[in-house]
């Protein structure tokens, strides 16, 4: 039921855009696939980037065989037209026209592609390491062939002679937080720069998914980013379903939606607790943690797992749903969060730490292609639940929470508004009768043609994307996972650099509420 609203199909602007690629009319499909030859790729990228409401959501490469040509795919979110546009370009050589010159946010992906497939943008600019350690040699396991010479490291920012030095922090940091290396570059007083190394946690998930059936792969997708299990596995499942031509039954989609909103709720509660902790407000933290624990127990009561693992399945939803528990416990559990939140919003010492901290401009959010609450807090009203609604979201109009200050307080308020919205949605969707159910694969298994598909979901951290290519035996040849964390970490150092007090960084990190696991997948 991944159909969009009718009546948008022949929107003239969109038709102009598609005519560039020699297509007339978009049809009703939510995903439009076009092919853009490398020769005029730059022109095409410029054209699409100029399209109103268009953002480059992801860039990745898929190999056909290890040493042959590769396909470069750009995934654009045409939010105004409620479409995703996938442009495919076949690349024979070692290079392709630089994308980051036009869309700066694509730099990280360019680095990643170079690391994994050894092909680089034509501009000779140095690239950074993303997923692999400094000593990763040519024989390191990769998705494609190794680059001819290793990518440059994120340089030691402190040159001898500069009046700054690097304050190393991590990878082993505070208690019960993920491993992450911060390089804080400081002049002794102000924070000059900040950069992150996340390769300590790179588990090569995309690498190990190759050759699996989507069903087996789902097990790893869920465990790629535990705090985003539903969002990511929904996106992945949707991609696989698009590839296999499955249509999950409505009650299963409703179950997914409820799970997704529950995930959003507990994540925002957890973020609230983390904010209190980073501002040293112990009792506030306790109050938020009571709410968090009750929401997690609600998850367990409703879907049988505190973190909602195993809810989504390819073609539907597996875990059955205890609607009574949902109706019974949700109001109380959310009430805890609500009370804690309103008390926090009336505590000045708390608000003072949040206000004007970690400011991120809308322009920066747009430039870097940020998503989710972080982007919405800067005034970017992007939410796939509203822009690319899959059933049941299309049925229930969603009020997208937006703030414009772009600081920690704005992010906090956005989260709280979203939490309230989620509770409303759960109530309405719950009435449509949600439950487990699986679509039977039409002609699944051997014999079917190789196919690929794109899937998405609005996880609590923002848009989560997945793209899956299956061979004729229904096994994965290339799976691309793009959790929201992948996009949003690149906005983190900008937000920190707007600050020059070290003690604000934990607050900013809490307000982003990202996971390292999500980006170092």
């Amino acid at each position, binding site marked *: 039921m991944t159909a969009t609203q009718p009546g948008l199909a022949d929107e003239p602007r969109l038709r102009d855009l598609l005519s560039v690629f020699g297509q007339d009319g978009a049809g009703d499909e939510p995903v439009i696939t076009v092919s853009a030859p490398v020769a005029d790729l730059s022109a095409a990228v410029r054209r699409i980037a100029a399209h109103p409401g268009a953002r480059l959501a992801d860039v990745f490469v898929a190999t056909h065989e290890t040493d042959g040509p590769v396909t470069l795919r750009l995934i654009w979110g045409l939010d105004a037209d409620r479409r995703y546009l996938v442009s495919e370009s076949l690349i024979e050589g070692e290079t392709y026209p630089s994308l980051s010159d036009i869309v700066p946010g694509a730099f990280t992906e360019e680095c990643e592609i170079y690391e994994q497939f050894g092909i680089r943008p034509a501009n000779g600019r140095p690239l950074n390491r993303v997923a692999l350690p400094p000593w990763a040699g040519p024989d390191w396991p990769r998705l494609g062939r190794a680059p001819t010479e290793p990518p440059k490291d994120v340089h030691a920012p402190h040159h001898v002679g500069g009046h700054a030095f690097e304050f190393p922090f991590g990878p082993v940091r505070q208690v019960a937080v993920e491993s992450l290396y911060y390089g804080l570059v400081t002049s002794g007083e102000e924070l000059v720069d900040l950069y992150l190394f996340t390769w300590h946690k790179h588990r090569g998930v995309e690498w190990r998914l190759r050759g699996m059936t989507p069903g*087996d792969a789902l*097990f790893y997708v869920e465990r790629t980013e535990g705090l985003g299990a539903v969002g990511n596995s929904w996106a992945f499942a949707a991609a696989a379903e698009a590839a296999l031509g499955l249509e999950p039954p409505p009650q299963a989609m409703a179950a997914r939606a409820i799970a997704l909103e529950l995930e959003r709720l507990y994540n925002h509660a957890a973020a609230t607790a983390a904010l209190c902790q980073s501002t040293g*407000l112990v*009792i*506030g933290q*306790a*109050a938020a943690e*009571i709410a968090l624990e009750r929401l997690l*127990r609600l998850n*367990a*009561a409703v879907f*049988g*797992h*505190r973190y909602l*693992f*195993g809810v989504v399945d390819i073609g539907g939803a*597996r*875990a059955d749903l205890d609607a009574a528990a949902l109706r019974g416990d949700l109001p109380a559990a959310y009430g805890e969060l609500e009370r804690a939140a309103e*008390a926090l919003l009336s*505590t000045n*010492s708390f608000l003072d730490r949040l206000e004007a901290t970690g400011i991120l401009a809308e322009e920066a959010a747009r430039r870097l292609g940020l998503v989710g609450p972080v982007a919405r807090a800067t005034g970017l009203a992007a939410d796939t639940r509203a822009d690319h609604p899959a059933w049941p979201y299309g049925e229930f109009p969603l009020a997208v929470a937006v703030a414009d200050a772009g600081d920690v307080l704005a992010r906090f308020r956005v989260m709280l508004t979203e939490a309230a919205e989620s509770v409303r949605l759960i109530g309405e969707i719950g009435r449509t009768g949600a439950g487990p159910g699986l679509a039977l694969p039409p002609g699944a298994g051997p014999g079917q043609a190789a196919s690929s598909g794109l899937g998405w979901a609005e996880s609590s951290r923002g848009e989560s994307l997945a793209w899956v290519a299956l061979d004729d035996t229904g096994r994965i040849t290339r799976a691309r996972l793009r959790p929201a964390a992948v996009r949003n970490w690149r906005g983190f150092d900008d937000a920190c650099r707007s600050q020059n007090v070290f003690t604000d960084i934990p607050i900013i990190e809490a307000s982003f509420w990202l996971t390292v696991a999500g980006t170092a997948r």
Partner: protein
Amino acid sequence: MPLWTLRGLRRGIVTTRYPARPDPSAALLPTPPVFRPDVLTPGLADRLVAVCPSRALARDGDLLVFDVGACTACGRCRAEAPHAAGDSGEFELAATVREHLVKQIPLGGRSA
């Protein structure tokens, strides 16, 4: 700040009495399965081994080797054979010796 302290006090105690007393919320937790040797046949065992995504199950002659440590309580085996695998409801599984978590379950079922 006094206001917050007051709130904290007014909220009352939510802390579990565990380990002194069992905690009711434990009932909600996903737990590893228990198997019925009398209905486990080699064929069924192989099917269970095949569906287990975390390689917690293995076949060793006429034994079903169940590594509780590797089990993620995903429930796939229970879904595969509800009559042969039930819910253990057991969450206190910590062991000081890894081997204690590996269970040998005889396949007592009659192969059809």
